[in-house]
């Protein structure tokens, strides 16, 4: 399996730049997710790699071969569409066999390979069904099988799970991940769903407004978001803007304009610098009572709380800032109630303002 390389890829639609000088290397055998809000250029990027869209500038390589202007039918890729795009006039078998027939594969070989890949996606025995006779999840797996049966150089998936219901979607995440590992195929996966990206990626490329914002493993992206956009897009974050009031040997003190003071690890902070604190809900600790010896202990006021079954989604007010947290199930706090919270310094994420 070759690596996929994008070199300064740019695509404009009229005045809108959908993809802006994108450099990216997808490593051999990894599954990389292009993640971002709608309109961030992730689908355009994928379609450039597939050959459905020809970039205005830049070059695309599959392995050693430059494919920038090669038509899609000559690229040897597998593509899974959001709407599956299973040809409705063909049975499952015919859908899978079509590409093999075009390659003049012998008949027995076609039958063998179709059966093989169908058992891989656990659809053995469905050969003669028409797509409309299958459930959404089954159609999804046929689409996957159709892309895999040709043993493509790279597998491209364009939001393949977004038409499935929530439960099935979660199952399929693991299935796709498993399959990709098992086959060792290089895969590029487009999604706007951060949970999906976190579950199934080796690495995530976060895109915004056509540009690559951050590239890293799920852990890196979640724990060390490069900026406020990434921190807000991946996982939940509450943001607090503050100024570095003082830097000491064992840490730094931040102060917001309304006088709330936080202790944070020193890092490379400089006095007077403005910075944004990103606070994840799971990093807000609830204390039974105020504590003198711990740092960053505050009294916060409950703004509203919503029962979620396994937890309680709670919005707190700290100074003029709103913090979101999750409480264990139990008594639902009523608005106006005061809670003691602690924000462990080492858990706080600092991003550029």
């Amino acid at each position: 399996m070759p690596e996929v390389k994008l070199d300064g890829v740019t695509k404009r639609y009229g005045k809108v730049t959908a993809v802006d000088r994108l450099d990216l290397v997808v490593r051999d055998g990894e599954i990389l997710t292009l993640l971002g809000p709608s309109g961030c250029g992730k689908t355009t990027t994928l379609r450039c790699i597939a050959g459905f869209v020809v970039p205005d500038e830049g070059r695309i390589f599959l392995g050693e071969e430059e494919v920038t202007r090669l038509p899609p039918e000559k690229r040897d890729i597998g593509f899974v569409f959001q709407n599956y795009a299973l040809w409705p006039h063909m049975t499952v078998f015919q859908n899978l066999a079509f590409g093999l027939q075009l390659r003049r594969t012998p008949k027995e070989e076609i039958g063998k390979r179709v059966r093989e890949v169908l058992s891989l996606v656990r659809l053995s025995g469905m050969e003669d069904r028409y797509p409309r006779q299958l459930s959404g999840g089954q159609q999804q797996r046929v689409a996957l099988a159709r892309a895999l049966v040709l043993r493509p150089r790279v597998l491209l998936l364009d939001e393949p799970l977004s038409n499935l219901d929530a439960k099935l979607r979660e199952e399929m995440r693991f299935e796709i991940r498993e399959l990709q590992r098992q086959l060792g195929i290089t895969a590029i996966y487009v999604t706007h769903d951060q949970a999906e990206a976190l579950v199934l990626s080796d690495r995530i490329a976060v895109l915004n407004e056509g540009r690559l914002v951050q590239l890293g493993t799920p852990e890196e992206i979640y724990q060390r978001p490069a900026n406020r956009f990434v921190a807000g897009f991946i996982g939940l974050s509450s943001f607090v803007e503050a100024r570095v009031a003082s830097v000491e040997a064992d840490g730094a003190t931040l102060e917001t304009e309304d006088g709330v003071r936080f202790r944070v690890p020193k890092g490379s902070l400089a006095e007077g610098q403005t910075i944004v604190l990103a606070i994840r809900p799971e990093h807000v600790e609830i204390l039974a009572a105020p504590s003198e010896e711990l740092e960053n202990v505050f009294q916060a006021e409950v703004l509203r709380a919503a029962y979620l079954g396994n937890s309680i989604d709670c919005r707190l007010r700290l100074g003029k800032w709103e913090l979101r947290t999750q409480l264990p199930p139990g008594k639902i706090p009523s608005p106006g109630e005061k809670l003691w919270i602690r924000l462990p310094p080492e858990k706080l994420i600092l991003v550029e303002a």
Partner: protein
Amino acid sequence: MKGLRGGTGGFLPLFLLLPAVAFILVMYVYPFALSIIRSFTDEAGSLSLVNYHKAVSLYGRDILFSIQVAVLGTLISTGLSLALAAYIRLSDSRVARLVNSMSRLGIFLPYVVVAQMMRSFLAPHGLLNVLLANMGLVDIDTPLQLFNIRGLTFGFLWKETPFITFIVLSGLQVIDDTYIEAARSVGARTRHVILRILLPMIKPTIAIAVVLTFCTIVSTFTLPYMIVAGNPTTVTVDIAHRVTYFGDYRVASALGVFLYLIVGAMAIYYLRRTVREEVYGY
């Protein structure tokens, strides 16, 4: 909310449909039945096949001519339309858009205007021959004679090709691009995309367009009446002759039944398909 969505609404729908249905019963079904009865009746008013004997012996050749024109016209216009529609669907060039809007013209012009157009365009000294003669493609003294099956077929092609193209193209436009891209991604070239994906996906639509075209060509009286000179000619023209020159409604009706038979299988396919779609939704 009774009757709003699929409810029966009592007699209201029947009442609303009554005028239209009554009109069709009196003005269509009655003469339709009459035409069949008349075709089996002799001068004395008794049951007989004499009209059919006459029809076949006098106009047998024309019955074949009608079929020939309809088959030829349908096949050629369908072939041209499929190619044109696929080209317009897959190309985003200005030429494709231009061809598309130009071809619409034929759908909207009525047959009587088309007939006059063809009469002047295809005449022995008409514009087509003028142009061909000046280009040296035909001899001035022996221009192309087109007031026969060739000119008639051309006239039908002129009118029906845009129609089928339009219907087929409407079908093709509904197909999401992803179906085409999916084919490309597994290695299909343009001809595979057209022949294995696009056209098979809209087979029912193509069938309807073909059937309607065939029925239209068989049924049309204006065009052959105005441009075919002498024999052989179409059955529709024979019917008019039979009525206007001989006042012979019985043989005319027998010829009418032949028209019904020519379109028979196709018309029934069309009726069944459309009724099934409207009533059961598939």
